[in-house]
């Protein structure tokens, strides 16, 4: 069984509520606070982009320490096992996995965050003294995605086996019904003969 989050771009208002919910949800579980969805805004589209939980997940294939596993239909990163090698970020076709770390500013005698690289640097190349980075990606909040519940316009949908089976069935019924008018008139013609 596969599970993932699907997006309705016409409902997305680009407000970022999903990202805030994602961040808070992971902090609450002792994980990195980095949001696992990114908001893509072009002239024509706004959409939250996140992990597809691919069947042939390249990130899982390349992980040298088996920190990425498939569990119950989703691709999961063990943030404790990750060594921060960034291979997964390089191979992901969606940019849905990237390294992140929590700054040590405010602890260990370092009061100020002293940047050593320009912020426009790709996350893959960033390095902060004393900051341990690990790969972060959507883990579907262990089966209860916070982003989906938080989205005020219902632009995000949690797709599980039951729902997608239902929605494909619905779409087939819809297709048949749309053809119904035609069938109705054919039946009418036949009766009149």
């Amino acid at each position, binding site marked *: 069984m596969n599970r993932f989050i699907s997006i309705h771009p016409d409902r997305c208002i680009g*407000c*970022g*509520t999903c*990202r*805030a*919910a994602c961040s*808070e949800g992971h902090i609450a579980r002792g994980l990195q606070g980095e949001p696992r969805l990114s908001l893509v805004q072009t002239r024509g589209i706004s959409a939250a982009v996140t992990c597809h939980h691919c069947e042939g997940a390249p990130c899982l294939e390349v992980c040298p320490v088996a920190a990425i596993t498939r569990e119950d239909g989703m691709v999961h990163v063990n943030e404790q096992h990750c060594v921060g090698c960034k291979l997964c970020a390089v191979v992901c076709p969606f940019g849905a996995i990237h390294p992140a770390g929590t700054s040590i500013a405010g602890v260990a005698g370092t009061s100020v965050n002293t940047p050593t690289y320009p912020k426009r640097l790709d996350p893959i190349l960033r390095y902060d003294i004393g900051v341990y980075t690990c790969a972060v990606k959507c883990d579907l909040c262990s089966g209860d995605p916070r982003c989906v519940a*938080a989205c*005020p316009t219902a632009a995000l949908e949690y797709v599980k086996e039951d729902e997608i089976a239902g929605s494909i069935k619905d779409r087939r019924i819809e297709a048949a019904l749309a053809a119904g008018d035609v069938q109705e008139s054919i039946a009418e013609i036949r009766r009149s003969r």
Partner: protein
Amino acid sequence: MEKHMAVCPYCGAGCKLDLLVENGQVVGAEGLDGITNQGELCLKGLHGYDFINDTKILTPRIYHPMIRREKGAPLERVTWDEALDFTAQKLMDIKAKYGPDAIMLTGSSRGPGNEANYVMQKFTRACIGTNNIDNCART
């Protein structure tokens, strides 16, 4: 966990929500079925509560009255009695010297609410005797 009904303080939409309280700290917010928001909240409504707990991420909360005894003097914490006496005297001095229109007040369109603003304009008009009161609607 306690729940306390509130209205989001962040925009003119007026979303109803419950603040969740544990051990005297606000720990969460949940949408309520208000006329406008129908249970939904945006990121500010859902995550805009922890400033109350004085997180000191940006700037600290103020817990005590403070004054500068003279222009340029350092800020000094004083009792409420002293702070109020000091201010009342200063305002009365200015009013006596320059008239009530030399005092200007601005209300708050943010967290305090309508009642606080009503009392402030009553203070402005009935006590100081000026209509020099405004709010941030212009900016």
